[in-house]
């Protein structure tokens, strides 16, 4: 009996000392997503990862989607985000303008660690060169993307197109890569821009797409969507999240979630990864400090 009381007391003591620790960890992280593709698909794609992270770290990870690439810079502080999966340009802008640090980035299914942009037209459009594009409708993705705007812009410039308004009958921003593809496919635009990972993803689901479209140009390698976290987050949390993500390919559950993200695994990311973005900005004569990333 006495032994039982002693054990019970000890147990209660342990529980009472444990409780504040768990409470301290019981916080929330709000992670933003850019509308890389259909916002519904995008959020569905990342949900399992958020759940996995919550489970493994004990921190509730919530996701929020942004309707514009550029919004992520404006709204990061406004919305009180703790981190976000940034694209090539948004990542660079964030590093520049926000107090964040890159944590991890995915390794694509083909093993590559970078992505690149395509300029696409419909096969039956007869467009083969930039010259063929005159008077056509162009669908960019967003101003705050290299693959969906800066690269096509530099490409067109290198092919003598200085004023987009004069050269194209209309150009607009679809906001997401797949929308740009669908706009071309549906005839709402003649020329589209798309990141190779999204393109491959669409083709894998509907192979006819590949035969319907023609790739006119291919951009240099750009960093894939990189998870960046606020620098002022507690170190242990950042470390824990990084650890979980870097090792998730070592278990079945993690591997399944990675498959949904069309990734093999995560690798550590660094500011260095965004060098190509700066180069591209230079090409188009823009400066990251002054670049007008907002779409008007």
């Amino acid at each position, binding site marked *: 009996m006495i032994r039982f009381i002693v054990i019970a007391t000890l147990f209660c003591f342990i529980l009472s000392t444990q409780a504040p620790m768990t409470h301290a960890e019981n916080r929330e992280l709000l992670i933003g997503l850019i*509308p890389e593709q*259909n*916002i*519904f*698909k995008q*959020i*569905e794609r990342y949900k399992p990862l958020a759940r996995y992270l919550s489970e493994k770290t004990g921190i509730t990870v919530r996701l*929020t*989607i*942004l*309707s*514009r690439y550029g*919004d992520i810079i404006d*709204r990061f502080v406004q*919305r009180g985000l703790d981190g976000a999966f940034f694209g090539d340009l948004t990542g660079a802008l964030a590093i520049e303008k926000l107090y964040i640090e890159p944590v991890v980035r995915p390794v694509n299914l083909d093993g590559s660690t970078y992505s690149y942009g395509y300029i696409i037209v419909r096969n039956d459009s007869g467009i083969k060169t930039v010259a063929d594009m005159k008077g056509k409708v162009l669908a960019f993705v*967003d101003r705050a993307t290299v693959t969906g705007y800066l690269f096509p812009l530099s490409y067109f410039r290198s092919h003598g197109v200085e004023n987009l308004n004069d050269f194209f009958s*209309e150009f*607009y*921003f*679809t*906001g*997401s890569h797949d*929308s740009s593809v*669908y*706009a071309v496919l549906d005839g*709402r635009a003649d020329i589209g821009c798309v990141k190779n990972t999204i393109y491959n993803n669409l083709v894998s689901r509907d192979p006819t797409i590949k035969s319907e479209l023609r790739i006119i140009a291919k951009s240099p390698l750009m960093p894939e969507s990189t998870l960046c976290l606020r620098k002022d987050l507690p170190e242990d949390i950042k470390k824990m999240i990084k650890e979980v993500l870097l090792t998730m390919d070592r278990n079945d559950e993690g591997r399944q979630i990675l498959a949904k993200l069309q990734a093999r695994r995560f690798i550590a990311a660094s500011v260095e990864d965004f060098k190509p973005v700066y180069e591209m900005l230079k090409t188009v004569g823009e400066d990251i400090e002054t670049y007008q990333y907002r*779409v008007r």
Partner: protein
Amino acid sequence: MRKKITQYLLLIFLLFALSGGIAITALSQVTRDLKSLITLHKIEIIRQNLVINLQTVQTNLYTIGTSFGPDLDVIVDNVNSLDKAITTCTGCHHSAILTRKLIRLKRFTEKYKEALSAFITTTANPERVKRLQMATAEIGEMLLQNTREMAFITNQKLKEKSGMALRKVERIKQILLASLLGIMLTGGIIAVNLTSEILKPIRELSDAAREVASGNLGYTIDYSDATEFGHLARVFNEMSLSLKEGHERNMNYMMRLSGLYRLTLSFHMVTNKQDIIRELVFGVAEIIKTEKVLVFLYNREQDRYASAFPAYGFTDSDVENWSYEPSFINNLYLKSNKRSIIIQPEDRITKQLLFRGNDNIRNLAVIWLKQKGILTGFLMTINKEGEEFDEEDIRLLSVIANNFSVAMDNAQLYRSLHTQMQKLKDTQEQLVQAAKLAAIGELAANIAHEINNPLTSILGYAELMREEEDVESIMRDLEIIESESLRARDIVRQLLEFSKKWPLKISKVDINRLLKEVIDLVSLNLKDSEINIIEDFSQVPQINADANQLKQVFLNLINNAIQSMTNGGTLSIRTEKIDNSVMIEVSDTGTGIADNVAQKIFEPFFTTKKDRGTGLGLPISYRIIKKHEGKIEVKKRMDKGTTFRVILPIRLSSLQISP
């Protein structure tokens, strides 16, 4: 019975299990229906949510600008919920039409998502944006319409299924009720059946037990089956029969004992040898129940064991001259170790024993008869009824044989006693005769002596007169002669009186008065004497007696008493009723009577009064009292007087009342 009860219980258990099974099946069916109903309701809720979500999204579509901000998350959530709802619906089993509709809905949703996403993310000139918005809204409307259409179908389905489920519940309720009633009915029948099956044998058993208790031993019951009750009934029957058997055995034993008692009693009642033999053979035949009984006794004269008469089951002529050589019998006696023997018809000895009439012999027992340890004969019992002789019979017969021997001994003793008695009687008679002769001789001598005295005087004075001349002397002598003659005459007269048999003249006599008369008579002569008379009379009844004769007795007794008190004294006369008699006591305080005198006072001519008595007073009194069936006795008190006690019966037994 245990098996039956187990079977019944098993049956009830099975019935319960059956009804339980029915109930569970029914319940699971109802639950399934209810589940499906709940699912339908859930679907309905999903659909409603879907519609609400859709409407919200549609509303958002028109009210909010393209920079959705945090509202975008809400839209995304709504659309995703919508998508999930449709996916859920498509995942279920549906009719082909519904499945087709759902697939279409799904396709529309995908399109809607596409259009919505494009509308939300696209940045273009207002016309394009407006076009995108219109397209999205259009798809949304179509989605709504489709959903509403489906709502109708699900509603119909819901109604139909609800109705079906309710009907099923009702039916199940009926089935449950029916099965419950059925089980109750069956259980009741089983209970009644079981109870009656248990009670019937118990009732029969208790009735039978009452029968047996009331004395009907051997009463059995017909109940028989393989149950415990059947076993109990069998045991009961066995018990009843064994009780009966035991009772019969006891009764038989009792009868034998009473027979033995009767026989023993008879043995001691009869003294005749032949009667004893008759009692023996008939008694044995009755007690042991045998067809034939014979007795053989050793005849010393013939030196043979000859049959005694009578024999049971034989005529006298049958057994006449039936006898055995002593050597043969003695041999048999010794061979049997001097014990009674049971002989079977096939034994060689049977033929030797029954050289005549040995037909139909089933069994035979020989019981030795002994007197003072010496073989005097034997008893032969033949053909016991129904069964063989057993040790019990032999024991009983041995007891009878012993009793017989004692009875024979007694008879012999009685006979010799009788002879002795006769001899004694003869001797006594001779003695009495001699005494009588002696008495007569003595009497004659006494008479001669008594008469001789006056005669001697008379003769002497007559002789004297011859020589006397003087007339005066002669006259004096003549007077003496006369007086002596008168004395002689008195003696003769009294003698005559004694020998004479006066009949009693019986009348009612008051003893007290009679005594008073006597006392009055004598008291005249006592005037000068110093004798005091005490009359101690009690109230006594009148008695039947001869007053004159009694007066003579008491006069005699009182005179004797007075005469014994020459120097005076007290004369007491007492009367008292004792039982059916009256007692009269006459006591004096005179000289009394000596022992040797007391024995003779009632003998004739015995007297202590030399001159005055004749010695006939008391003998005459004695005779009178005897005739009155009374008693007279003397209580001698030497030197203290004498008491005579007379006891007279109030009534005389023999009618001596003379006319």
